[in-house]
């Protein structure tokens, strides 16, 4: 291969280093107006009145919008369309928008916000999942599976209780993983404008232009073909720009109302309220093992703090359980998940979406099992890795799996066997593994169309342009597209022009989420490029008098592979093809294979392929301060095939960095003020100043290994790399802390105060552990019983009539099945 696998400057590098990348906030249009949102200072309140009279008369103000202007609810998941662009009768978290002011300047819009008079009737709040389960009132939403319960799930993949009873040892642990946020350096921004034909265009820093397109059409009650959404390159996404947002709908409505372009850029504080970040999750994990540590059954319960709205929560809930089976063989598995509503900004998908929390639980517990059984944690894992090309207990189909090689690389690189357990007090090594999807097997809304489409256009100039709805969020999706087209056609990546993320110009791609782009867009690109290649080859073969099967494409030439001197330039081949076939264009599309999981809820978890990661982390723990320093990380990732080593390494190191941030310091945490002062439930740190994230000074040395175990489902065998490498970091650090000082911190972040408390427990001779001590009673529904493949199942639930449509989380009444 000439392009794939070679280290290259990414195709958009020049724009990024010259400052020419045009982010949403850089879009400036003539006659542009500016919008600002008035946000609720109350965590929960009834809106008695929103009076815009004074604000409308303020200097520079052109328009004031309120909830009355947005009668239609929307939301990313068809099952939870519970948001309004501006609150209509109730606010449910501090920071929820209640009015929008549109003015000639941003300052005038901001100044006029103070003149919007809002009368609130404060309501009691729900501050935690425990409160949500205890209290039916106040009720945050009138839908859900309980007064303040959004979702409940209960799956029994085989009967775990007899298996646990037969196990040699059963380990039961409680873990808590605090919420945290994406903190993209770019604050969300959007510009809406009407074109000369009166059609609406929205430029936005979104990871999912297609879903924004759909929800704009819904919320504005416009035909989708009258709307164009352009995803500007995102200044970091990490999942935080995957929902359709209130500010996008507000500026779109404002542009329609004024006929002028309208821009909004969130402040940093507002980005903390937009959130959609990592769910805080409390977990109880019971695992039964044989004497050698082989798992016989696993029983997991998760309790999610969802915040005030649905967002991706129906999927997030299932993701806290579904991927627990794809690393180690789990013969029987029970998973129960519960997502509650609370009066906080909504949680959603952050890098790893729902899986870092249970992965932390599983990998820390495995470490405890290894210690209890006197086994090396690496060996304990190696002995029970899921076989390649097999089905898991919950009917996920694992294809290639390079996990054993990943473990061996980091064990060798870190000299694990010589150093683990033997370092001086205060220093330690920890190991953990993980897996992630290469794209969700199902789209967010049910349909049978392609998940990704690519069009190629070629003309006599030799130009090749690739059109795809995929969205560049910094991860390099544009570069992957160019590289794959170039590889097939024998060009350089920089020869391929790109048009991406524009719903008017590009075929639909579902967006940059679930690590789906390389695999799905890549396969669509290969198909389109192979079709183009066939057109060129047919014409070139005739012209050269060489059989078509003997033609090769490389170095911008089309030539006889047996006599390379016989050939023509790529451009000459395009000319020949244009003469022969007329105007040239091809398409390619991709839809993931049908899942074996045919039970209700089984739509979350299936993927065409799974990536695997193993990490060893070294720590130094200061017993005086509890401060944990990480000097070095070894990480091995089974990527299938590296497309561009420079970018792939960047994704791994970035994932390690982000994992360390949430492991050691990042918290999207809330504070209840004393009731005598205020009923408020407020974000503790809504600024970059106080929300601590790692700087260059905290970044350890990272040794990255790629395991290339090509997966037949991936383009050239490639799997994902954007999310997986974050996952093992938190448990590896926790396990390393145990190796260093002999304490267990079963709670993320592994902040100094917690480490100190655990050390204090140890000093007093008590159990050297800090972590949750109780899991509340959850009204679990009856289990959906799905026999595992080895117990004669067929992928369906034994106690439910499942149809293929039901594999998506089902709808509550009134918002079912939105179809395109």
């Amino acid at each position, binding site marked *: 291969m000439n392009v794939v696998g070679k280290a290259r400057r990414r195709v958009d590098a020049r724009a990024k280093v010259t400052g020419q990348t045009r982010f949403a906030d850089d879009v400036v249009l003539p006659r542009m107006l500016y919008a600002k949102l008035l946000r609720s200072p109350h965590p929960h309140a009834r809106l008695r009145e929103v009076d815009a009279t004074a604000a409308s008369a303020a200097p520079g103000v052109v328009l004031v919008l309120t909830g009355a202007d947005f009668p239609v609810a929307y939301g990313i998941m068809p099952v939870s369309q519970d948001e309004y662009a501006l609150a209509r009768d109730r606010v449910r978290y501090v920071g929820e928008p209640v009015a929008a002011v549109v003015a000639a300047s941003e300052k005038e819009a901001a100044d006029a916000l103070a003149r919007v008079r809002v009368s609130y009737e404060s309501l009691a709040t729900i501050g935690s999942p425990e409160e949500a389960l205890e209290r039916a009132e106040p009720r945050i939403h009138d839908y859900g599976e309980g007064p303040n319960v959004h979702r409940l799930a209960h799956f029994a993949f085989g009967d775990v209780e007899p298996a646990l009873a037969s196990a040699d040892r059963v380990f039961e642990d409680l873990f808590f993983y605090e919420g945290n946020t994406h903190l993209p*350096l770019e604050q969300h921004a959007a510009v809406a404008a009407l074109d000369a034909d009166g059609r609406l265009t929205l430029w936005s820093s979104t990871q999912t232009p297609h879903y924004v397109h759909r929800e704009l059409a819904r919320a504005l009650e416009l035909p989708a073909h009258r709307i164009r959404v352009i995803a500007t390159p995102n200044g970091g996404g990490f999942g935080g720009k995957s929902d359709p947002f209130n500010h996008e709908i507000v500026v779109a409505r404002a542009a329609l109302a004024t006929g002028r372009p309208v821009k909004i850029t969130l402040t940093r504080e507002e980005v903390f309220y937009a959130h959609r970040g990592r769910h805080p999750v409390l977990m109880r994990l019971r695992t039964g093992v044989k004497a050698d540590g082989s798992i016989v059954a696993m029983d997991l319960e998760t309790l999610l703090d969802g915040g005030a709205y649905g967002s991706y929560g129906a999927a997030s809930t299932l993701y806290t359980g579904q991927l627990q089976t794809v690393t180690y063989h789990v013969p029987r598995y029970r998973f129960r998940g519960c997502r509650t509503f609370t009066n906080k900004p909504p949680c959603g998908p952050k890098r790893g979406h729902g899986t870092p929390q249970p992965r932390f639980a599983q990998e820390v517990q495995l470490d405890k099992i290894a210690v209890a059984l006197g086994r090396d944690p690496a060996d304990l894992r190696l002995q029970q890795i899921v076989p390649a090309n097999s089905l898991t207990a919950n009917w996920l189909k694992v294809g290639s799996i390079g996990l054993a090689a990943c473990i061996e690389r980091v064990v060798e690189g870190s000299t694990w066997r010589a150093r683990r357990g033997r370092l001086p007090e205060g220093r330690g090594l920890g190991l953990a593994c993980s897996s992630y999807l290469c794209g969700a097997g199902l789209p967010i809304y049910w349909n049978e169309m392609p998940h990704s489409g690519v069009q190629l256009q070629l003309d006599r100039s030799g130009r090749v342009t690739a059109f795809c709805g995929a969205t560049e969020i910094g991860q*390099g999706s544009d570069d992957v597209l160019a590289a794959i087209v170039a590889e097939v056609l024998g060009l350089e990546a920089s020869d391929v022009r790109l048009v991406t993320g524009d719903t008017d110009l590009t075929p639909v791609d579902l967006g940059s989420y679930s690590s789906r782009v390389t695999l799905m867009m890549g396969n669509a690109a290969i198909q389109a490029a192979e079709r183009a290649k066939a057109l060129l080859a047919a014409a070139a073969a005739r012209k050269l008098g060489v059989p078509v099967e003997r033609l090769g494409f490389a170095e911008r030439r089309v030539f006889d592979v047996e006599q390379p001197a016989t050939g023509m330039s790529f451009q000459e081949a395009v000319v020949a093809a244009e003469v022969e076939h007329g105007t040239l264009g091809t398409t390619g599309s991709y839809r993931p294979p049908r899942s074996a999981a045919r039970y209700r809820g089984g739509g979350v978890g299936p993927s065409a392929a799974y990536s695997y990661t193993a990490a060893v982390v070294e720590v130094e723990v200061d017993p005086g301060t509890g401060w944990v320093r990480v000097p070095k990380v070894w990480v091995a990732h089974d990527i299938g095939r590296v497309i561009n080593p420079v970018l792939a390494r960047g994704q791994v*190191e970035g994932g390690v960095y982000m994992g360390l941030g949430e492991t050691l310091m990042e918290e999207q945490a809330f504070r209840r003020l004393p009731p005598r002062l205020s009923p408020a439930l407020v974000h503790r740190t809504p*600024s970059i100043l106080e929300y601590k994230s790692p*700087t260059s000074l905290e970044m350890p040395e990272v040794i990255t290994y790629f395991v290339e175990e090509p997966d037949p489902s991936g383009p050239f065998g490639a799997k994902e790399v954007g999310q997986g490498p974050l996952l093992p970091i938190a448990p590896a650090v926790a396990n390393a802390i145990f190796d260093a000082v002999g304490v267990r911190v079963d709670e993320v972040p592994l902040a100094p105060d917690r480490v100190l408390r655990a050390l204090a427990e140890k000093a007093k001779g008590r159990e050297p552990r800090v972590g949750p001590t109780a899991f509340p009673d959850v009204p679990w529904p009856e289990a959906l019983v799905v026999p595992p493949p080895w117990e004669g199942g067929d992928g369906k639930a034994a106690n439910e009539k499942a149809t293929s449509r039901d594999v998506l989380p089902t709808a509550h009444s009134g918002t079912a099945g939105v179809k395109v």
Partner: protein
Amino acid sequence: MTAGAEARRRGRAGAAGAAAAGGRARIALTVNGERHDLLVAGYKTLLEVLREDLGLTGTKHGCELGECGACAVQADDAPVLSCLLLALECDGARITTVEGLARGPELSALQAAFADKGAAQCGYCTPGILVTAQALLDRNPHPTRQEITEALSGNLCRCTGYLQIFEAVEEAAGTGGARGTSPRRARGGRRPRKGVST
């Protein structure tokens, strides 16, 4: 970053006074070698004037608090946070933004190294980091890894994990792989703009 305070201390009292009444004031800025005579509102930061009045959108908003470094520019050869400076305070200053780093169509050595080494992922923090790193190289052409790490500790990057950024700076400085204190450290070196490629 102390140069912002320095710029403030130097004081452009006349212009600041004129705008104190809530109006606008005339200032002159030399940006990337071009002089601009501007009439600016008193409340506007240097960042806002660069982006909105001069159309130089390469410099980014990230936090408006001086914490993230996305808005870094050079003022009289020192890195400053343009979100913390009022434009009025900068009257007469020489400003270099990311748009001023390349020489014509040719990337600077630092820009080329960032492109080659994967130092820019989403690219949003990149302008501020480039300007800050260039200021480091201007006063210390052969920094050690530790010096690079410290110089960039005020610039947050959420994508890369910083390591490819460090390597790019080292590549531009010709110190790739250097560790510890560099014996070649020198102050006041000329901007290393040779060896460019595009």
